[in-house]
C-alpha cells in the first residue's frame, strides 16, 4: 500500500506536477507550516487594514499564493521522519480558513454557501480516511483529480472572489464536487455491501447443509 499520509494530503493535478519534480532538499513540514503562517498573516493584515471582515486585498492574495506554492513544494519535499503527520491537518486548516474568510468578506449568500462547500469537501476528506481504513483503497484517483485537490480548489475560489463571482462558483463547486464525491463513494460502498451480503449468504447455506 502506498503511503497513507500521501493519500491524506489530497493533492490535485498541480501538486502532483510538483511531486514528480521532487524530491527537493527541504522539509515538507517546514514549508507547509510556513505556507499556513503566510496565509494567516495575509488574511489578518487585510482584516485589520479594511473595515469589518476586511477585503481581499494584495496581502490576502500574497498569503494565499504563498500557502498554495509552499504546500505544493511540500508535496515534493523530503519527509520529516517524526512529525510528518502534521502536514495533512495543516493543509486542511489552510484550505478551510481561506474558503471561510473569502466567503465572509463577500456577503450573505456566500457565507452559507461556503458552509455547504466545506461540508462537501469535509465529506471527501473523511472518505479518504475511512475508505483506506475499511476498504484498504483510497477514493478514485480520477474523482480526486476532477475535483481539483486542495490546491486547485483554493485557486478557483480565490480567482472567483477577486472576480466577484464567488457565490456562483461556490454553488457550482459544491454541486460538482458533491455529486462526484458522494456518488463515487456510494458506488464503492454498494459494491462492498453486495459482496458482504453474498458472503453471508454463502455462509448460511453451509450451515443449512450441516443441519
Amino acid at each position, binding site marked *: 500500500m502506498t503511503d497513507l499520509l500521501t493519500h491524506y494530503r489530497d493533492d490535485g493535478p498541480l501538486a502532483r506536477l510538483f511531486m514528480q519534480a521532487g524530491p527537493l532538499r527541504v522539509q515538507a513540514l517546514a514549508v507547509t507550516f510556513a505556507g499556513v503562517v503566510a496565509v494567516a498573516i495575509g488574511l489578518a493584515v487585510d482584516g485589520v487594514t479594511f473595515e469589518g471582515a476586511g477585503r481581499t486585498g494584495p496581502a490576502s492574495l500574497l498569503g494565499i499564493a504563498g500557502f498554495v506554492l509552499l504546500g505544493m513544494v511540500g508535496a515534493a519535499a523530503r519527509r520529516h521522519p517524526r512529525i510528518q503527520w502534521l502536514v495533512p491537518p495543516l493543509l486542511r486548516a489552510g484550505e478551510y480558513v481561506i474558503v471561510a474568510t473569502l466567503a465572509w468578506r463577500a456577503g450573505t449568500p456566500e457565507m452559507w454557501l461556503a458552509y455547504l462547500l466545506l461540508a462537501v469537501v469535509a465529506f471527501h476528506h473523511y472518505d479518504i480516511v475511512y475508505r483506506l481504513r475499511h476498504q484498504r483503497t483510497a477514493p478514485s484517483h480520477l474523482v480526486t483529480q476532477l475535483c481539483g485537490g486542495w490546491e486547485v480548489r483554493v485557486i478557483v475560489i480565490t480567482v472567483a472572489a477577486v472576480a466577484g463571482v464567488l457565490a456562483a462558483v461556490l454553488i457550482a463547486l459544491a454541486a460538482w464536487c458533491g455529486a462526484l464525491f458522494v456518488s463515487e463513494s456510494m458506488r464503492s460502498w454498494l459494491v462492498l455491501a453486495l459482496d458482504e451480503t453474498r458472503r453471508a449468504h454463502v*455462509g448460511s447455506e453451509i450451515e443449512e447443509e450441516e443441519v
Partner: protein
Amino acid sequence: MTAHTASLTAICLALAESDAQGPACLLPVGDQTLLTRLVDQFRRHGVSRVVVVTRPQWVESCANAVGDSAQVEGHPDLSGMLAAIADVADGTASDLLIAHADVLTHDGVLAGMLADPRVRSGVLSTSKVMHGLLAPRLRISRGRVVASESAYHSVDSHNGYLLGICKIGRADVGEAAAAARELAGLSAAGLPDRWGDEFAGKVADRGATVLADRAGLAVLADQIESVHPLPDQFPDPIALRADLAADYQLRVALPAEALRDDPLPLLVVGLIRRDVMMTSAYLRELFWDRPLSERGAAEAYHEMVGVDEDRVLLDSAVKATDGFFTTFFVSTYSRYIARWAAHRGLTPNQVTSVSMLLGVLAAFAFATGRTAGMIAGAILLQIAFTADCIDGQLARYTRQFSKLGAWLDSVFDRGKEYVVYAGLAYGGVVTGDGPGIWMLAASALALQTFRHYIDFSYAAQQHQALAASVRGSVKTPDEGEITTWETKVGDAATSTSVLQRIGRSGVRTSVAFERQPWRKWAKRIIVLPIGERFALISLTAAIWGPRSTFTWLLVWGAVAATYTATGRVLRSFA
C-alpha cells in the same frame, strides 16, 4: 445466528502429553474430550475442513476420537509438522485457523475471533498474567502483535500472552505457507545458532520458579514448625516434598516438551517478522486453559461452565476507550437497550440509520430558532447519541461486524454533527443573529475536521513506523535491534538530543499524571470527545442559543487541539 465468512480450514495441533502419557487433547471434559469438543466448536463456526496434526504414536487414538469429522496426520518432528502446515495452507483458498487441540475455552471466544473483521490475521491473547510455558509471551502495540515468544524466540518486554489459537486471513495464507516452509527448513537442518540455548534458558527459568515455589514453602514450613505448630491453612511439608516430582512434571517437564516442537508460536514469530499484520483478539473476562491432567481438565471445565458468558459479552460490548460522558452517562444503560435490541432482532445498521434520522430531526428542531425547538433539538440530539452508542454495542454483542456498518457509523457520526451545526446556524439567522453565524458554524466545522485529521494522520504515521519496525529474520532468537519501535522511527537524522529529552520528559510527566483515575478521565474530557461535544451542544443550545454553542465549541475545541497536538509532537520525539 452469526454470519459466516465462507468456509474455513482448521489445523488442530495435538502435541502436548498428559500426565497419563497420552495426548492431552483426549482428556475428558463434560461428556466429550478436549479434541472432539474443539472440533465441534470449529464445525459450529463455519469450519468445513479440520486436520489434526499429531505425533505418529497418537494417530490412532486421535482418529478414533474424531471419527470422520477430521483427518488425522502423524509427524515425527517439528520440521515435519511445519511442512504439514505449509501443505494445508497451500491448498487453502479461505481463512486458516491453527489451534492447539487441547485448548479449553468458550464458544464465544472462537465466535468473536472469527467474526471480528479487525482480526484478518491474528491471535487469541490475554493481558492478564499467565504463568507457564503453554502461553508464550507477546508484545502488543496498538492492537498489533509486534513480538512473540516461541521455544526459540524471546520477547523484550511483554504485555500479553498467546493463547494457542491463530487465525490467518486468506490474503496472508500464502505468506504463512512460505514462513512455515522456511521454518521447516531451518529446523530440519538442525536448529540455528543459539536456538537451543534460548529454549534451555526458558525451561530452566520456569523450573527454577516452580521448584522455588514448592521447595521454598517446604523449607519455610520446617522453620515455622521448629518454633511452634504449623497453622492449619499451611500446606503439609511432607506432602509438599512428596509431590514435588509430580508437580514438576505437570508444570515444567510436560509443558516444555509440548513447547519444544510446537509449530504454532514459531509460525506466529515467522509471520510477524515477515511484516504480516497480526492483530490481537482478546480473551477478556472469559475462561481459557490447556489442562494436562484429568483432574486439571475436570476443574477447568467446572470453572468454565460457571462463567456468565452473556454478562461478559455484554460488558465487553462497551468500548474501554470511550470518553467520560459516554462511559458514565450513556453506556451504563445503553448496553441493556443493546441487549433488548438484540433480542428483538434489530441490526446495528438499522440502529445507526435511526440515529442519523434523529440527528436530522434535531437539526430541523434547532433550525426553528424558537425556545421550544432548541429544547426539543437538544433532547433529540441526546437520543440520537444514545442510539449511536447502542449500534456499536449491539454489533459487538451480537458479533454482527461489517465493514459497511463501521463506515456507516463513522460517516453518520460526522453527518449528524455537521447537519446540526447547519440547523443551529439557520436557527440563529431566523432569530436575528445575522448571517455571520454561518461563519461561526464554518469555523466549528473546520476546527473539528482539523482535529480529526490530527488524530488520523498521527495514527497513520504510527502505524507505518510500527510496520517498519517488526521486520526481521526469523533466525535470531531475540528481537535484536528492534527494541522499542519509537526509537526506530526515522533514523534520528534531524532529531537532536534536546528534542528527544524534552519529548521523553513530556511523556513521563503525562504517564505519571495518569496514575490517578480521575486525572485519566480529566485528560479524556479536555480533548472534547464526541460524547462531551454532543452534550455541550445540547446544553448550550437549549440554555443560551446557537451563538453560545459555537463559541463554546470553538474555544474548547481550540484548547483541545493545542493540547493534543502538543502532546503528540512530544510523543513523536520521545
